[in-house]
Every structure is written in structure tokens, then in C-alpha cells.
């Protein structure tokens, strides 16, 4: 037995022998995300999964080893781009994360998450104040501003659309669109989308202060009307029919969102609603986080474009908040001060974080000004708005 050769082989197969600077940088980034998720509790349910997926996929391994968890060439290699992904090959030769990634690539996870989100969301505030939908629409401005800026910076149309959707402040929607239009930038898009959603309490308040006057921030809004159970049951059916007939490409997301909501509201499927908002949601979040994080391979992630995407994502969030606030101001003027323009900032989706930020900001200026329920209207309208925007971009670039 040749001891030297054995030791040499052992060294050559070890991670240390195959360690690159990209591995080192990505492992540091993964650890930073783990810190932010665990210590700072920034979207921990997803960020911890994303960070650990990132950590696993950037461990140096021999390319042909059967231990490799994720094979990017199966998804974005020349053969996959030219002839489509060979799912049989993925199932036969893929690693754990390759198999989990099928759910991302096929759009399964975002849709399942939307069923869970629907089962957890109360659309009552929106039904009682339908004008909230306008604020939810205005807050999608960020998507199109970021899209235009991305084109100006030289990104292709599908990539620019995927970058723009970060402004929708909706992680599953961003993943749903990007996996179809620009899977090669899925990791930076997902990381940017979830990072900025977690940073909403830092991003939005300065804009709220800058764009509203003290008088506007102190407006007390009247309680909204009561909503009957019939309206709550009819709402998901009507929204599905109306939106999917106008824009069929939104059926995947909005159909699932409304299905989940119907399970919650119809009153006869309590067990299913319970499963959707708890067990199903948790399982899918687990799979989604780790498989999206695994796509952040150093050689793909560490690019100048990633910095552009991160910067454009921030612009998208800022313009989305600005759009909502400006329309809120306009509605305040039109209604002669009956609407507090701060609730426009909640139109950026990110349920319920954005509504909570609005409530906290309003209470900062007047401790008796509770805007939470008023902000929930634009907040859930933002979910519908960002899904419609994603459906439009899918219809334009996905065909």
C-alpha cells in the first residue's frame, strides 16, 4: 500500500485542495446572512435557509463527485438553455438541492407559498375600503422605474423585468418571474428581494418623513365599515375571475393566493386552511430557502452585475414607497384630509411588515393614531398589484 499516494489522494479530494477565493467570499457572505437572520431576525424563516443553502453549495467539492448537492450546469448549462432542463437526468444524477430546485424551476414553490399567504391574509380591510387598491397599484411604480433603469444599464429585457420585480416587495413573486425569465440571476434577485423586505423599517420611514407634512402624518382616519362573511367569500372568486380573464398569466400566483383565502373564509375547510398556513407553508419555505440559496454559486454570484442588481433593487423599493406616498397625498387632497397619506407606503406588498411600519411611524408623531387596519388595505392590495405586474412582465417577456 502506497501511503504517500493515499495521503496525496486524500488531500486532493479534500475541500482545502479545491478551495478558491470565490468559495471564501461566499462562505463569509453566507455567515453574514446567518448572523442577520439569527441575531437580527431579518426574515429569519427564509434568510436562514438561503444562507445555509449558500454555505452548502459553496463548499469546495470535486465536480464529478456524487456528493455534490447542486449542479448548476443541469439548470443553466448550454444543454439546458438550448434544449430545456432534462428532469430525468436531474432525478437520476442530481444532488439533494437539484431535486429540491425542481420546485423553484417549475414555479411550484411560489404558488404553494401563495396558497399559504392567502390562507393567512384577511382581505377585510381592502373590501371595506376598495380605494386602497389604487394605493396598491401606485406602489408598483418602483417595478417599472427599476426596469427602465436596468435597461439603461445594459441588462436584457427579461433580466431587467426580473430586477424590476424586486420593487414588488414580494419574494415568491420575484422568484416566480425570475425562474422563468432570467434563472441565471435568481440568487441575487432573491437575496436582494428578501433583504430589502427585511430592511423596510429602515428604508421607508425617512421617505415617509420627507414626502409628507406633519399635518398629513397626524390625520386620524375613521374606522372602516363592517364586512359581511358573504363579501369575504365572494372576494377571492371575483378577484380570480376578473384578473385572470384580463391577464391570464397571473393565474398561477393570484389563483393560488385567492384559493388559499377561500379556504380560510368559506368556513367549511378549516383543516385545509390550517394545513396551508402552517404545515404546507413551513415545508415549502424550508425547500425554497435552501434551494434558492444554493443557486448562489461564487462563480455566478460574484459579478459586477450583482452589485447593480442590489443597487437597482434598493431604487425599486424607494420608488415603490414614493409612488404609494404620492398617490396617498393626492387622495388626501381629493378627500379633503380624510386619508392619511402614510398608508400609501404600505402598498409595497411585504405583508404585514409594511403596514406595521406605517402604524409605527404614525404613532411616532401621534401615539393615538392607529393606522394598522387602514394600512392593511393597501398592503394586501400591493400583493395583488405586484402579482398583476409580474403577470404583465411574464406575458411580455415569457412568451
Amino acid at each position, binding site marked *: 500500500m502506497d501511503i504517500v499516494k493515499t495521503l496525496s489522494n486524500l488531500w486532493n479530494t479534500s475541500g482545502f485542495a479545491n478551495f478558491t477565493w470565490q468559495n471564501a467570499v461566499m462562505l463569509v457572505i453566507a455567515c453574514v446572512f446567518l448572523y442577520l437572520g439569527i441575531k437580527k431576525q431579518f426574515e429569519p424563516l427564509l434568510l436562514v435557509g438561503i444562507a445555509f443553502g449558500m454555505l452548502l453549495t459553496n463548499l469546495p467539492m470535486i465536480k464529478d463527485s456524487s456528493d455534490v448537492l447542486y449542479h448548476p450546469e443541469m439548470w443553466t448549462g448550454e444543454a439546458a438553455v438550448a434544449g430545456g432542463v432534462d428532469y430525468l437526468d436531474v432525478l437520476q444524477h442530481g444532488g439533494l438541492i437539484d431535486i429540491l430546485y425542481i420546485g423553484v424551476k417549475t414555479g411550484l414553490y411560489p404558488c404553494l407559498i401563495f396558497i399559504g399567504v392567502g390562507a393567512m391574509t384577511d382581505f377585510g380591510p381592502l373590501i371595506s375600503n376598495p380605494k386602497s387598491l389604487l394605493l396598491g*397599484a401606485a406602489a408598483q411604480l418602483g417595478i417599472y422605474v427599476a426596469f427602465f433603469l436596468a435597461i439603461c444599464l445594459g441588462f436584457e429585457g427579461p433580466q431587467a423585468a426580473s430586477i424590476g420585480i424586486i420593487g414588488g416587495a414580494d419574494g415568491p413573486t420575484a422568484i416566480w418571474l425570475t425562474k422563468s425569465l432570467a434563472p441565471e440571476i435568481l440568487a441575487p434577485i432573491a437575496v436582494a428581494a428578501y433583504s430589502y423586505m427585511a430592511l423596510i423599517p429602515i428604508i421607508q420611514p425617512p421617505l415617509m418623513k420627507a414626502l409628507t407634512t406633519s399635518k398629513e402624518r397626524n390625520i386620524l382616519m375613521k374606522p372602516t365599515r363592517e364586512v*359581511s362573511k358573504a363579501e369575504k367569500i365572494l372576494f377571492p372568486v371575483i378577484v380570480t375571475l*376578473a384578473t385572470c380573464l384580463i391577464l391570464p398569466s397571473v393565474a398561477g400566483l393570484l389563483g393560488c393566493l385567492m384559493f388559499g383565502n377561500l379556504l*380560510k373564509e368559506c368556513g367549511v375547510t378549516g383543516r385545509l386552511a390550517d394545513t396551508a398556513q402552517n404545515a404546507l407553508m413551513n415545508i415549502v419555505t424550508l425547500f425554497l430557502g435552501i434551494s434558492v440559496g444554493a443557486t448562489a454559486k461564487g462563480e455566478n454570484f460574484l459579478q459586477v452585475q450583482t452589485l447593480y442588481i442590489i443597487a437597482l433593487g434598493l431604487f425599486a423599493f424607494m420608488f415603490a414607497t414614493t409612488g404609494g406616498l404620492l398617490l396617498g397625498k393626492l387622495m388626501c387632497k381629493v378627500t379633503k384630509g380624510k386619508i392619511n397619506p402614510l398608508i400609501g407606503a404600505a402598498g409595497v406588498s411585504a405583508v404585514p411588515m409594511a403596514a406595521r411600519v406605517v402604524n409605527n411611524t404614525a404613532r411616532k408623531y401621534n401615539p393615538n393614531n392607529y393606522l394598522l387596519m387602514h394600512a392593511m388595505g393597501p398592503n394586501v392590495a400591493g400583493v395583488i398589484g405586484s402579482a398583476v405586474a409580474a403577470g404583465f412582465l411574464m406575458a411580455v417577456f415569457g412568451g
Partner: protein
Amino acid sequence: MFLNATSAIEIKMPLTDALLLSVIGIGIVFAVLIVLMFIIMLMGKIMEKSPALAAKMPKLPKFSDIFKKKKADEPITEAPEEPKAKGTCGELVLINTDERDAAMIMAIVADTTGTPLNELRFKSIKRIDE
């Protein structure tokens, strides 16, 4: 690199087209949501003007209702057969607790934790007599 040289030439979009697409895009979002707004308004009007229909479906309690003070002379009703409380996700079992007290407890928990009531899940509330 993300940008593929060959496809970039084919797919790269002129700025005027990108601007036009952005305007159309935000216009579509507004159009769809405005249609929804009118449908929801119409639904609300029909419910308002059709008491028979509204009566068939019980009204859900407003969030603000749970803060309302109970009248002094209102008798406290014991929960005889572990009734299910309204206004919470799933089903809530009340044991020796009336709905008002349960609503107060839920509101306090929601306020203290900073979590909207519709996101909290209460399984049961039981009065413990000491």
C-alpha cells in the same frame, strides 16, 4: 457573465421601447386594480341594499369591536358547550370564558406582541379559578 453577447443583441431593448413598456405596464396594473375596485364597490352596494342576503351571512366582528367596553348591566354568560370564538384563525375553544373576555385577551396579546390579530392563532382560552 450574465449578459450573453449573442442574445443581448437580439433581446436588448431600445430605451424608448423600455419607457413605453413601463408606462403601459403601470397603466395595466392600474386598469386591473381599478376594475377590481369597482367590482368590490358594486358588491358592497348589493350587500348593503339586500338585507335578506346580508342577513343570511353573519357579519364578522370588526377589529375595533374587541376594544369596545361591555355595558355594566350586560350579564356574563358562561360558555356551556365550549363554543368556538369568532375573529381568529382556525377554531378557538373557550373553556369557562365568555367571548368578550376572550376577545380582550386576544387583543392584548396582539398589541403586546405587535402582531396583527389575523396572524395570531389561539387554540383555547381557559379560565382558571383560584
